[in-house]
Structures are given as C-alpha cells and as structure tokens.
C-alpha cells in the first residue's frame, strides 16, 4: 500500500533527524546551546515552509489541487511535520525546559487541540464513507450508460441514479449527514409519486451519521483556532514557535479536510480560520488557506458536497448527464452519444480514482489520529515527569 511505504519513508527521515539531534546533544555541552537551538528552529521552519510550498505547486494529475491524491500528500507532509516537531521539542530535552513558561501554558493548549482534532478526524473519516455511497451511485450510472445501446430504459436507469447522486451530494452538505428521526419514515412512503425516477432520492440519502447530533465541524475548528496566537517578543524565537507552528499546521490540515470532504455542519467554514501573516514559514500555508477559502466562498452558497476535486468534477458531469437524460429521445443523435461517451469515461475515471484512493486516504486519517494521540501521551508523560521533579525543589 502506497501510504505505508510513504510512512516508512517518513519514519526513515525522522530517525535520521533523531541521530542528528543526538550528536547535537553531545556537542551541546561544549559549544553554545543557544546557537544550536536557533539553527534547529530555523531548519524546522524551513522544512515546514518547503513541505507546504510543494503542496501549493501541485497542479497536475494525480495530485491536482484538493484531489484525493493531493489530500493524501497533504497528510503525508503533515505527518512529517509532526515527527519533526517532536524531534525539535522533545529529543534530548530536559522535562524542565518543557514545563516552564511559556510552554507550561502552550502545551496543554496543544493537547486540548489534539483532543478536538480527534473528533474532526472521525467526522471526515465518516465523510469518506458517504463519498463511497456517492461513488456507488455513480457506478450505477456507469452500468446504465456504458452500453452500446442507449435507449429509454438505460437513460431512465441512469436518471434515477443521477438524481439520487445529486441529491445525496446536496444532502451531505446541508445536513452533514444526520438522519433526523422523522426521516426514517420517509422510506416507508407509498407509491404515488408521479415522477418516480426522481423520487428515489430519499432512500439514497446520506449514510454517515455517527457524530453526535449537536456536533459541528465548524464549531470544532473554531474552538481549535480561536485562541491560537502567534508568539511575540522573546517568545517568538524560543520553543513557543515550534508549538505555534505545530498548532497552525494541525488546524490548517483539519480545516482543509473539513472543507474537502463531507462533514457535519460546516456553514461559514471560510471565515472561521485566519492564518498569521508576515511569517516566512507560514507563507505557503497562508497561500493555500486563501485559495481554499476563496473556493469555499464560491461553492458554499451553491451547496456542494465539498471541495474535493473529484466531487466537483462529478457534480458537473452528473448535472450534464441529467440534463441529457431529461431531454432524451430515442434514438439519440450520434454526436450527442459521443459526448455522452466522453462524459461517462470521465465519470469512470473519477470512480476509479475514488476506488483506489479513498481507502488509503481513510487509513491515513486514522494514522493522523493515532499519531497525535501518541504525541499527546508523550507530552503528558513529560509534563508529568516535570511536575514530579518539581515537588522537591519548590
């Protein structure tokens, strides 16, 4: 699986850094610790900037902006940043350094953000399940239209799936996938709806509903980002900086996932997260964030399933095909059929990408989940140690 090998690769670079760190620790006693630390901080900042800059420059397949491939790359980069962050902050460092101001306040905040991020990870992971649902509907469309003979039967079959698909996309976005109690009875509906092919939309509704009812992605992101302030003065060159970078990267990555994938309750997502300006390491993230924000504002009103590139494309194709289906009369003209064929091929291509990419993406989200949990445990342990060591001295 590609995700694993990439991770292994990351692990490799992470270990590489650890050994560098060890050497530094040894040499620290001889030369100035401070210089080393500055150098290290700069290296970390540069690396973070480079990683996100690379994401900014992705234009082509299979890693087009906000595509499944791109998101996977984003998560890979994030996991690397996370490993580097731990290397900078934890390796060879005395627990005391970590437990003293300003980290004594900043670290618990980070740990709290991590807890909040876990629920976001779960929510977007559920969102991927509902994308699979949409993918299956698209596959029905393919079964119907990927034929030599396209007649009334095939078109009606496709139309039914397309309506369900488009309504599922709309639904995912509007309700974020919560089934409300009353909706259950909808599937009991008797016949009698005239436009039957379109009425099937109700049973094809969202399939993701495991977040608590009052849970909101936007609120969660807001809670994570609202008290996020860049370190000032002296702090801006100390250990507060990597913590801030880590916080920013975490919030940004989750915010991006929420924007890209179906997720419960995210109205106003575009306005809820402001990136710091004028910081060299933050420029690529800021640029990405602005770009996504803009996209979001454009799409928010229309009600889409999220900014995922594949979904954007699929929505267009589905709309086109539905229009075709609405005006269809047998036999269709040859050039119209050619056009249909092209659209169907593109739809098939998207389905293939989803088939290949969604599961690894979901696994990566789990990986992020587990990695930040582990980081949290490690920090808690260090803080705990520092607290114990503190008792005799105070």
């Amino acid at each position, binding site marked *: 699986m590609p995700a694993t090998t990439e991770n292994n690769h990351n692990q490799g670079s992470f270990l590489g850094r650890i050994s560098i760190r060890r050497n530094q620790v040894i040499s620290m006693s001889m030369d100035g610790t401070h210089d080393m630390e500055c150098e290290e901080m700069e290296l970390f900042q540069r690396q973070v900037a480079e990683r996100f800059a690379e994401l900014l420059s992705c234009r082509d397949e299979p890693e087009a902006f906000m595509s499944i491939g791109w998101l996977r790359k984003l998560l890979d980069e994030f996991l690397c940043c996370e490993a580097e962050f731990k290397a900078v902050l934890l390796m060879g460092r005395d627990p005391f350094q970590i437990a003293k101001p300003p980290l004594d306040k900043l670290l618990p905040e980070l740990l709290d953000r991590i807890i909040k991020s*876990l629920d976001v990870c779960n929510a977007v992971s*559920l969102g991927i399940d509902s994308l699979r649902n949409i993918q*299956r509907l698209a596959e*029905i469309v393919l079964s119907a239209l990927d034929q030599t003979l396209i007649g009334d039967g095939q078109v009606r079959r496709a139309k039914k799936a397309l309506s369900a698909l488009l309504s599922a996309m709309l639904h995912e976005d509007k309700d974020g996938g919560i089934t409300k109690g009353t909706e259950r009875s909808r*599937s009991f509906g*008797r016949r009698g709806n005239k436009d039957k092919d379109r009425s*099937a939309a109700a*049973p094809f509704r969202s399939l993701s*509903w*495991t977040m608590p009812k009052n849970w909101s992605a936007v609120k969660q992101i807001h809670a994570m980002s609202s008290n996020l302030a860049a370190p000032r003065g002296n702090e801006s060159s100390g250990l507060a900086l990597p913590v801030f970078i880590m916080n920013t990267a975490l919030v940004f990555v989750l915010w991006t996932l929420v924007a890209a994938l179906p997720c419960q309750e995210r109205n106003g997502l575009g306005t809820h997260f402001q990136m710091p300006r004028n910081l060299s390491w933050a420029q690529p993230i800021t640029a990405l964030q602005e770009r996504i924000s803009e996209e979001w504002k454009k799409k928010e009103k229309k009600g889409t399933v999220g900014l995922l590139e594949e979904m954007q494309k699929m929505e267009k194709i589905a709309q086109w095909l539905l229009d075709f289906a609405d005006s269809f009369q047998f036999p269709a003209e040859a050039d119209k059929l050619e056009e249909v064929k092209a659209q169907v091929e593109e739809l098939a291509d998207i389905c293939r990408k989803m088939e290949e990419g969604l599961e690894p993406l979901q696994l990566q989200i789990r990986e992020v989940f587990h990695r930040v949990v582990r980081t949290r445990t490690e920090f808690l342990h260090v803080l705990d140690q520092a607290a114990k060591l503190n008792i005799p001295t105070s």
Partner: protein
Amino acid sequence: MAVEESEPVIPELEREENLIAAARHIVKALGSNKNLTTDAKKILADLGSKLSSMSIPSEMEEGKEGEEDEEEEEEEEEGGVNATEDRINVIQEKIMRWEEDQSMIWDLGPEEASEYLNAANEARRLIEKLESFNLSKDDQEYKLLQRAYSVLQTAMARLEEEFRNLLIQNRQPFEPEYVSFRSSEEDPVDENSIVSLGDESVEESLQRDSVSRAAEEHIIDLVHPGVIPDLRCIANLLFASNYVQECSHAYTIVRRDALDECLFILEMERLSIEDVLKMEWGTLNSKIKRWIWALKIFVRVYLASERWLSDQIFGEGEPVSIACFVDASKASILQLLNFGEAMSIGPHKPEKLFRILDMYEVLADLMPDLDSLYLDDVGSSVRIECHEVLKRLGDCVRVTFIEFENAIAANASTNPFIGGGIHPLTRYVMNYLRTLTDYSESLNLLLKDRDEEDAISLSPDMSPGTEEDSKSPGSPSGVSSMTLHFRSVASVLESNLEEKSLLYKEVPLQHLFLMNNLHYMAEKVKGSELRLIYGDEWIRKRNWKFQQHAMKYERASWSSILNLLKDEGIHVPGTTSISKTLLRERLRSFYLGFEDVYRIQTAWLIPDVQLREDLRISISLKVIQAYRTFFGRHNCHLNDKYIKYNADDLENYLLDFFEGSQKCLQNPHRR
C-alpha cells in the same frame, strides 16, 4: 388468457419447481412400492430416456437458460419479429398495468407477485436472446430490444421498491423482550410455497440454512421469516438483470437504518471523544457498564442475525452478502468501537482500571465473533479497527496499572495514622489487588506484553525495589508477569508504609503499625486468590516480618518496665539483703510504668482479634509472669499497702490494650 399466449416462455423456474416436486413424489412412491405394473415401468423408462437425451444445465443460471432457450428459439424463429413483438407487448402490458396502481404488489398476494416476477424475468430473457443476435441499428429487432430494456427498467425500478418495502414493512421489533431465541430445529421457511428463481436448487439452500442455523444459537429474525423467500427471489432477479448495485444499495440503506435504531434501543447514544473525556467518572462508569452489555448483545445477537439475514437473501458466503452486511453494519459497530477508543485515550486513573479491564475482556471475548463476521478484504477495515481498539484498551490497562503503582509510591502523609491500625492505603491496595485477580488471565497477558515489548516508556521514576523477591535465586522464568508486578506493588506499598511508620514519635507504635499492616497484607493474600499469585514463600516472609515487628514492639515497649522486676540492684549496697526501700521504689516505678503504658496503649489499635489476643498473651507471658515471679519472691518483704495491683488485676488490665479507646487506671499517681 395472457398465460396461454406466452406459452413458450412460461417461466421454467416455476416449471422446474413443480418438476422437482413431482420427481420427489415419484421417488417417494417408488421407495414404498416394490412391485410396479408394466404401464408404470414403461412410463418411467420413457422418462429415463427423455432425461438422458436432455442437455445437462450448467451451474450458472445464464448458461442453463441459454441452452434451454435454444429449443424455444428454434420454434420461435418461424414467428420471427412479429412473435417477439407480441411477447414484448404481453410483458409490457403486465408490467405497465402496475404503474398506475397505487398499491404494492407483494401486499396483494403471492399470485400477483409471482406473475409480476415472471413477467420481469421474461423481459430479461427476451433481452438476453435479442442481445445474442448482435443486432445492428438497422435491424427491426433493435427497436424491440430498446423497448424490452425500457420495460425491464420499469420492472426493475418497481422490484427495487417492492424489495425495499418488504424489508421495511416486515422488520421485526428490536426490543430485547421480544428477542426470541431461535432453536436450531425450527424451520420457518416453507421452500415449496414460493416462487424461486432457478439459479439455485431448493435442496441446496435448505441444507445451507440448517447448517448455518445450528451453529448460531443467538440468531433472531430481523425480518419476518415469511418474506425471506420473496426477498431472495426479487434479489435474484435484480442480480440476474445486472441490477446488483441498486439492490444492494437499497438493502444496505434499510438495514443500516435498522441497526442504527437498534443502537438507539440499546441506549447507545453517540458521544464525541471530547464528550467522553469531559465526562464525570460516575456518569462514565455507568456508560461503560451499559456499553459492555450493549456490545455483547449487538455483536452476538444483532450482528450475527444481520449477517444471517444477508446470507439468506444474497446467498451464504456470497461476496455481495458480505459486502452488504459490512456496509450496513460498519457505521454502527464503529460507533460502538469509538467509545472504546475514547476510553483508551482518557486519563489513566487507577480507579478506572477495572472498568477498562471489563471493556478489554468483553471485546477480547467477542473478537472471534467479529473476526468471522468481518471476513475477507471487504470486512478488513472493520476487523482491523476492532483489533486496534482492543490493542489500545490493552495498552490502557498496562499504563493504568503502572499509574496505580506510581500512585502508591507517591501517596505521602504528613500526619501519623492515629492508633497504628490498618492504613486506608493498605486496605485500598490489597482490595484493589484482590479484585484484579478476577482478571488474572487478561492481566497476565497484558503485563507480559509490556515486559517483552517494553513499548511505552512510562517507566516509573522510582523503580520499585522488589527486594528479596526478585533477587531470590528461583528462576525468574517460572514466575508469571502478574506475580512479578503484584510483588512489586506489595514492595512499593511496604516501603511506603515504612515511611509512614516513621511519622510516629513512639518507637513501639512504629512497630505496632507495621505489624498490623503487614499482618493484614499477609492475611489478605492468604485468604484469597492472591495466594496463588504471591505464593506461600511470600506469605511466610510477611509472617516472619510482622512477627519481628511484634517482637520489636514488645522490646521497645516493655523492656524498661521488665528491668524493674529484675533482682539486680535491689540489695542494700554491699550486702545480699534486699533493701525494702529500693523494693518499694521499684514497685512504685513498675506501677507507674504500667499505668503509663496502659494509658497510651489502650488508645492503640490492633483490629485483628486474633493478633490482638496473641500479642496480649505474649505480653502477659513476659510481663505478668515476671511480676508474679517478682511478687512471689519478695512477698515477704512487702507490706500490703505497697501492693497496688496483684497479677490478676494486671492480667485484666491487659484486656483493655489495643482496643483503640484510651483509658486511665483509677487514682492516678502524682504527675
């Protein structure tokens, strides 16, 4: 009338059904009848030759139908396009008739249903036949094929709706009191009464059912058993017509709703991880108990039944069946697992250990069920998640146990524990350990993992000295991980108690306190499962230790008083005669000393009756005996007025010792 017209395409599924029934009847009749008439023999021989001349249908429905069709097709060739058109007209009429009708076909009865099903199947077969001609757009039949597809689509959309409706309308109630446990003999499916698509022999399906049902005792009917054959027929036809996705999608959504409702009935509300971590322990505790109960029912009853349902409808072990089951149940089971995950993340407070162990054990216990429910690639994501959560709960148990150990080490007191009895910490730790023995198997496994992996670097700062236990020459390999960890906990506790004992100003009380607590530990181990873990050697050592403390107590408490009863130094200087003054002085000091000890040590406490008794006897043997001897020897030199207490008085006073309520002897002397 319509039926006659469509004679050539009368569904062979129905014919085959009847044929099999007839053949069974013949076999049965032959079995009971040894003598056949010539007529009968002739008819049977004819049948035999006819059977052998028939082509054997292949396993696949497609193949079977294709070949059998050939005969019909040849007959039909003569009719050509017109005959085909007639067929389509007939089918279309049958299908379209229902489009105006508001009612569900399956609500109206088996005849209507089977007629509709047959008509739809005819459309499918007609398409199959026309497709085999490789028609070009200019052929006349091309338009017919197009029409046939259109009819098929109408029928398929309708069947999908009927399928969904049947599934929903016939859902069985979920309330636990309605849960009827299926016996393995019960056979609710009357196979012969229904229309079945000819793709699997009835006998085969019956056999499968009985096999799977015998194995699963907890299976309930999630959908009324009477409609299962109908559902299977519709599904089969949808599948045969390449409407697999529509069918499995409709199924998945209905069942997902049902399982969601089931969680609701089991009162498993959705909680975010943040909610769980913020929850008060009391609330969380009851939520955990509920979770354990619900998980068992959900996996053993509902998921097993759900899997059985999809097997019944889609065929046991069919990939579609597993895929539908996984899709339908994934969200619910993951919701349950998420709670376990949240618990494993939460703070590792020692008081949570038992509940987390409960969670670990129930999940570990269900793991074989979950493994077999979520088979193959399709189920792997859920299966992996189950194992992950189990592993995390196991890690959480380990870490929490270490936290427990650390908490004992860190428990510091500033004031001595009044009376020198059993310290609450000792009680807490020993009861805690004793309760943990209920989880021996899991705990042994989990603690062993840690020792081997040394995975989490949460080494306690103060590594508990395991004293003589670990250094004993006995082979460490013979000792279980749990034993090592439990002994280590006991050592940590002992050193903590030693520290606590130093808070007493009186040396005898230090020893009394340690004696009490060590005795308590040893007794607790002796009288419970802990004995097996700690071993007799450990108990012997604790017994020796507390006896040592008892001796040291006696020495510290009584030796100065006993010295007063010795003969040295009571003689008139330079002679061998006893100095009465000195004697009187000695006796007075002895009484003073005894009263002093009485006043102090009546306030001390030995909670264990036996231990208290033993120590009094031991004191009596030393002190009262010495007094008796002293008294007997010097009785003659003593005036009665100097004798304040006789030996029996003292004996009685000893009974007031170590009761934990301070007393004074009457007419206290000066000072």
